[in-house]
């Protein structure tokens, strides 16, 4: 099974988290650590790039649910981008598109953050 791995890159005030491999009950804690890290550094604008993610299980989805409330309380958000059809289908079945903004490209998501930032100013 392809190992799961994550990478975090800052793009201005937005943090982009790259996922690859299989995100399931056994690897979910890695992504949890990433999110905890970002929150502890007061980084609440998060874009998650799913480009290399092969599979996500319900435990993987749970990670997003665990943090979204805290992040939104701090006027941040988790925006999801670049999902394969298969991964999107999993999100879609559960109704995630109603709860999260999902974009086709990372740039789009980052731009969205910048726009809302401007409006706030």
């Amino acid at each position, binding site marked *: *099974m392809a190992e799961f791995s994550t990478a975090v890159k800052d793009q201005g005030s937005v943090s982009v988290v790259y996922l690859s491999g299989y995100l399931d009950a056994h690897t979910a804690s890695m992504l949890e650590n990433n999110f905890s890290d970002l929150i502890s550094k007061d980084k609440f604008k998060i874009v998650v790039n799913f480009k290399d993610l092969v599979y996500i299980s319900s435990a993987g*989805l749970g*990670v997003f649910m665990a943090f979204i409330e805290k992040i939104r309380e701090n006027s941040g958000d988790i925006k999801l981008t670049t999902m394969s059809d298969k991964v999107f289908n999993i999100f879609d*079945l*559960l*109704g995630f598109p*109603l709860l999260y903004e999902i974009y086709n490209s990372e740039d789009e998501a980052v731009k969205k953050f910048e726009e809302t930032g401007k409006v706030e100013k």
Partner: protein
Amino acid sequence: MDIKSIKLKHNIKLQLFLISASFLFIYKLFVNTDGSFVLHLINEIAAFFTVWFMILYANDIFNEKKFSPMSLVMNLGIMCAVIFLAVTFSDSLLPVLFGRISDTLKNPDFIFKIISFLYVLFFAAIISYLFLIFKEFYYLGQKKSSSIYFKTMVVFFLLASVTAVLNFFPEVSYIKNTFFIISVILIIINSLKISWIAFIKKKEKLSLLLLSVIICILFFVNLFGSSDENSHYQVLSGFSIGLGQFYKIIMIYGAVYFAVLFFTTLFHIPTAEAFDRKAQEVSSLQYFSKLITQVLDFNELAETVTDIGKKVSNGDAAWIIWKYEKVLKPIAHQNIGYLDAELISDYLFRNKPVQETSYIENLQRFEKRSQLNEPYSMILAAPLKTHDEVKGYLIVTKKGDFIFDDEDKSAIDTFSDYASVAFENSRLLEESIEKERLEKELDVAREIQRKILPAKDPVYEKLSVSSVFIPAFEVGGDYYDFFEIDEDLSAGQTNKFGFIIADVSGKGISAAFIMAEVKGIFESLSRTIESPKEILITANQILKRSLDRKNFVSAAYGVIDFKREVISIARAGHCPLLLVRNGKIKNIRPKGIGLGLNYGDQFRLSLEEIELDLADNDMIVLYTDGITEAKNSEMEDFGETKFEKILLDNSGKSADEISNEVIKEISQFSKHSTQHDDITLVILKWKQKLKIVSPSEEPGLDGMEKVNGRIQHRS
């Protein structure tokens, strides 16, 4: 032999001693032995038995205790010094009291008789004591004692002493001299057997070297000072000539023994260090066996390791630095405060690569050294490895100007290897206990799941139901159930049939508990609420109270109305239901987000309820993603297309046959890979003409009660 009889014999010896001493005393007091051989002989015999019983009595006391060689040497030195004082000062002191001793002896007065008796008795006791110490030395460190040499020597001692009485007849003095010479030869032979010297420590050997010189000289002085002109010797030999001889023999023995001891020690000094190291290795082996028994408790093991580490390296304080998820923490500190240990560890390991071997470091350059509570000056650190990975360090430290030498380092090297093995064993044990615990937990989870799911499929006149559930190794959280709604008890029939299929996020025991809760919720809601959409909305509200933020449940709930022949379905994030009708397949996918993902209006607003009229031979298929995501060895999904094709190809068959067909295909597909998720498949067939109908049975209820009972019991 029991203690009582030993005591008794012991007492007899004392009594015999007292009797012979009394006899000797009286004899001395009233009998003038001058000139008569017979009277002399009686005197000698009485003296002989007095000393003999004294030695026997003292020997018993000696045997009860265990002496270290050094303490024996010290005692012997003191006794020898007492004799030395007597020999040196008797010439100036005794004549003051009694006049010339040689004259007084010829014509003793009453007081002299009494005092000389006590004087002799005192020195006889000292000589006996010396003799017993030499006996102890002889047997020390001898494994298979060849006691014959010592016994022979004692016999000749006796002969030499007893035959001293033959002084009366100068022409046979060669007899006495022969025994005396043989005694001396035996003394020399027996003195060469000094094996105990090898087993004492280097430091003790050095002090022994000095002591043996002094004691040897004292014995020589005592021997040569005890000439026939010496008052002390005159008193002794005047009292009993045999005792005087025995006294001389013991002095010779002492002089020879300590001369030999001096040279033996001298020759042992160069190898003393090597011997000490060997002895240390042996003792660390003992420590190791001590470690082995403590692997059950990590903290206890760590304490023992620091304790022993401190001992083997001669350090003042010790602690362990252990890696807890990449962070090094001081644990099990001995003789050192936590803060000191932390400060020093921080200095040692901050910004430094992992050290694979042990090393010594001076703390003089440590900039925070003044902050330490104690003036630690040096550390010795040895890595503790498990699986070739450095998991921590054993650190020993010294105060003041004392340093660690290579010997300490090699001792700690050896010991840290042992300690690593012990830590590794401890870890393996912990792992296997943990593994067992997880397996037990999984068993419990599977048991809960088994009892939650319906025991058998219900049977209706217009509907046939077939369900298959295959659990994954780790409970995956699949749940399905059937409910009888709107029962017409008088007619014995059910008007409505409710069904649910759900998948709880997460795995294992936590998923199993959520499942149990979900079952409870739907079981009760299905009786009071008719609309699937409303049921899901209410269930979501109830779950709000108990679900963790990261947990959620995907579910689809439906009701079939037997009278109206319609099916109404609502879906909360679950896989779509499939409707197979007239050789075509259709996804029934009413909108809706998963339970527990949102507790506000969004959930309610997103939910949609679909109602469909049922036609003859309609087939409704409920499933969980365990089916479509079943993997083959290439990690490919079974997929929807394949699934739908099987359903279509077999749509003419009965519900049971179709579900069997699906499961057969999936197991064929994924036979070379493990099942990651639960697989659930429920097939509902409407008004199928093939089936024989029979009255319904209540499904699943008894299972439910059991689970509820168990949860209550556990809380």
